[in-house]
């Protein structure tokens, strides 16, 4: 894309966002829905500024971000390690592959009672749930990337007499870079969703729990402030990962 086209796209998306906010304001002001249920962007913004002013919202945001990141990093490390193990051996793929396909579509919510039974309603339980939920995209992407190395490159590896581990390290894992990063990006989104749900379930301090309690006490302006912050977390984490991809995958650019 040329810089001009890119600028136009960026301007367009800013305009769309501004329009939506305006629409929200109009509905809140003129539809007759009481502000207790639907605060306008003005009220939500004020609640946001006030919450950040007292440090309360900042603290909760960091709590949720930290939870999301820990779970995601755990899931990514395990996902890459397991994926490399499974992907680099045809026998492992044949034995474990069907099981993976069987377990993968099971929603994380089905695992939650099991995790709760072991860890109770605790922060650790939330972390484990996040890890279980966000490991799948990374694990499957790694298996795919590691097991689909160009056959000629595997011959290069054989010809240079690299060991199986060296082949994995120098050929298969780098080959999986693209897939792994895409999987990690998906995993991060899942991690954020599960962090919020986990906080709600386990009453752990964070934006998720904040949203739950403010909804129960009809402080909808604060609820919306929390939702806005969640949106910003999603946006920011995606931008960071995009920047990482841009750097790591620079060999794909011409």
């Amino acid at each position, binding site marked *: 894309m040329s810089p001009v086209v890119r600028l136009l796209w960026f301007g367009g998306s800013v305009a769309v966002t501004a329009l939506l906010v305006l629409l929200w304001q109009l509905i809140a002001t003129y539809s007759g829905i009481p502000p207790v249920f639907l605060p306008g962007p003005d009220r939500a913004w004020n609640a946001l500024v006030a919450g950040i002013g007292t440090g309360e919202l900042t603290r909760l945001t960091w709590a949720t971000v930290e939870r999301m990141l820990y779970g995601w990093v755990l899931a990514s490390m395990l996902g890459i390690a397991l994926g490399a193990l499974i992907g680099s051996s045809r026998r492992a793929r044949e034995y474990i592959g069907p099981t993976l396909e069987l377990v993968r579509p099971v929603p994380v919510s089905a695992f939650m009672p099991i995790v709760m039974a072991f860890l109770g309603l605790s922060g650790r339980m939330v972390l484990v749930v996040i890890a279980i939920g966000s490991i799948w995209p990374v694990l499957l992407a790694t298996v795919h990337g590691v097991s689909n190395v160009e056959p000629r490159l595997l*011959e290069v590896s054989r010809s240079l007499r690299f060991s199986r581990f060296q082949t994995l390290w120098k050929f298969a894992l780098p080959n999986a870079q693209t897939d792994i990063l895409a999987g990690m990006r998906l995993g991060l989104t899942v991690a954020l969703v599960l962090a919020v749900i986990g906080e709600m379930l386990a009453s752990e301090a964070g934006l998720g729990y904040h949203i739950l309690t403010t909804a129960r006490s009809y402080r909808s302006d604060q609820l919306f402030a929390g939702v806005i912050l969640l949106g910003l977390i999603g946006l920011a984490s995606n931008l960071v990962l995009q920047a990482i991809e841009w750097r790591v995958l620079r060999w794909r650019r011409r």
Partner: protein
Amino acid sequence: MDTNVAIAPRAAGDTAEPLIRFHNVSHSFGSRQIIDNVDFSVGRSEFVCLIGPSGCGKTTLLRMVGGLLTPSMGEVTYAGHRVDGPESDVAFMFQDYSKALLPWRTASGNVSLALEAARVPRAERAPRIEALLAKVGLSRHADHYPAQLSGGMQQRLQIARCLAQDPAVLLMDEPFGALDAMTRQALQDEMLRLIETSATTALFVTHDLEEALYLGDRVIALYPNPGRVAQIFDVKLPRPRNQLTSREDPEFLRLRREIFDFIREGET
């Protein structure tokens, strides 16, 4: 210059101690026989070209020497022992160079791969990579990724990686087949120069008759279906070869005619 006198004749496979030997090698994939009773040898420092139509089993024979394929009958020996896997001092140059390079490593990184394989300590790698890239004229592209290089440069990079193995034998599978005529001639000369200074043994696959004559000490012509040796031609052209004079040498023209007629006869 009278090169006939100045240059000592290179060892011929049948007189000198053979380095590579095919002992009655046959091969089948499933029920289809691909190679039938191939038996020849390549002498130390000799340059042998394999020539034959597409699908006659040239790549298959090369893969056997490279230890990438075990023949179903007979055996291939290298320096007196049976080949049952890749040897560290035998370098394999693949037909499809764009697929044989690591796209996520720079030119330096791709050369480094062979040094890593040879367990060269990290500190010694940089100067050697620099020297190897200079040898193939890629110094200015050390930090470029394969996707940023032209076809000819990619092939030169593969040459550099093979040279990094410090090989006693170079196995080359139609290395210049996909390149334009100018680049091809330049690389032929570069390669001859590099090989002659290090006395490397070369087994070179091509289906270009003139290329085989220009490069080789001997040309082995293969028949297809199943692949077998049709005839072996000695190329008694002086070295160093020259793109103009060698190709106009009466001996070159005579051999070209002879092999051309021979191939046409085989077809009818």
